[in-house]
């Protein structure tokens, strides 16, 4: 029932957004699309209402970041209580998320001993990414992960952690030696080490691009379907709106899936960098 209401509300919001598109779409299609996806310092609470400029020079994506953090902190601090034997409501939901991260991401990759140390970090990462991605699906808001700077910052953090944890666990010499293949001449060995580090860098870039592209493309796809109504024919709405709703539903799945993929890959990369060769 709740899901049905949400879908109906979304359809309503999508339809109510049509006049705004109509005003601009005929002139500049790509400009209209990007205006609704890219970062800005204005928020439109209702499609026909005038845009409100955010205070302190804040951008929409920064607002989404802060809102996500506040939401997560509020959820956790108000619902979780120490020594609760019979959890109910929100605590059960939060516990199930942490258990999912623990049993399906951290423990299978890192093992129990190391996993316990990293569980807080990866749980926070998964929840942070999920909430930001899901908040971005609410029509008034924007997806902060659809901004290359935000997703790159997250990936850069993982990239730095790969180095820090690797050097801390293996030592500076062994961390570099780990990439050096045995039984090869020094020039080839050094070349392989270089390739390995380029690989590490590439992995992080890919991590960032995957998250950014998925979140950005999803929003763009929804808006593209709707803009087609004005570009082709108003009657095209009968096809475009169901497609947009379908894509939107798919976006919910993608939002959670990308959070999962990002967390899982971060976990694997950090684990790989801090494990000696052959283990």
């Amino acid at each position, binding site marked *: 029932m709740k899901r049905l209401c949400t879908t109906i509300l979304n359809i309503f919001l999508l339809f109510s957004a049509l006049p705004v598109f109509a005003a601009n779409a005929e002139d500049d299609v790509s400009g209209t699309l*990007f205006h609704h996806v*890219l*970062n800005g310092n204005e928020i439109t609470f209702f499609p026909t209402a005038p845009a409100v400029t955010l205070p302190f020079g804040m*951008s929409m*994506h*920064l607002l989404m*970041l*802060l809102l*996500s*953090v506040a939401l*997560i*902190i509020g959820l*956790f*601090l108000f619902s*979780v*209580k*120490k*020594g*609760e*034997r019979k*959890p109910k409501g929100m*605590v059960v939901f*939060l*516990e199930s998320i*942490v*258990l999912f991260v623990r049993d399906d991401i951290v423990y299978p990759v890192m093992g129990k001993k190391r996993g316990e140390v990293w*569980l*807080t*970090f990866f*749980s*926070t*990462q998964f929840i*942070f990414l999920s909430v930001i991605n899901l908040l971005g699906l609410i029509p008034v808001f924007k997806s*902060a992960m659809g*901004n*290359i*700077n*935000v997703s*790159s*910052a*997250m990936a*850069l*953090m993982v990239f730095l952690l790969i180095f820090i944890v690797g050097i801390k666990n293996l030592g500076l010499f062994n961390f570099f030696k780990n990439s050096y293949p045995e039984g090869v001449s020094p020039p080839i060995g050094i070349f392989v080490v270089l390739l390995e580090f380029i690989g590490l860098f590439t992995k992080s870039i890919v991590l960032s691009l995957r998250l950014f592209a998925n979140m*950005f493309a999803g929003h763009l796809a929804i808006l593209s379907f709707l803009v087609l109504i004005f570009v082709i024919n108003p009657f095209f709405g009968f096809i475009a709106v169901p497609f947009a709703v379908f894509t939107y539903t798919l976006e919910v799945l993608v939002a959670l899936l990308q959070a999962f993929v990002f967390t899982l890959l971060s976990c694997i990369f950090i684990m790989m960098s801090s494990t000696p060769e052959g283990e």
Partner: protein
Amino acid sequence: MELFKLDPGLAIWTWISFGILFFILWKFAFPALIGNIKERENLIAKSVDNADEIQKRLNDINTEYAGIIKKAKSEADSILLETRKESDILKKKLLLKAEQEASDIVKNTKDKMLEERESLILSLQNEIADFACDVSEKIVGSSFTSDKDRDWAMELAKSL
């Protein structure tokens, strides 16, 4: 291109936001949440262990019970066999004793009957002797009361 426009400020804010979130959750939320999960898991593990132990004890008790029942049954069987044997012996003894007693009774009765017969015969002989004396007195008219007469009468009765 605006899509790939660099915004270091936003990147730094991402780190700050994530850092603050991580610190607060790490410091205040996760210890309680993970602690509760662990406590519950320990409780469940303990309960499962207890249940296993109880099951094991129950199995032991069942085995012990089956052993006791088996032992009791075998004891009961052996007691029954022993009792049967004893009862057979006792039965034989009693039968033998009864037969002995019966033969004794028969013998005693026979003896008694013989004694009775002897005494009856003697008494009859006395009667006959008395009758013979009385009849002789009546016929002869003299008294037949001496011991000699009596012995004669007795001899006569015995010869009948």
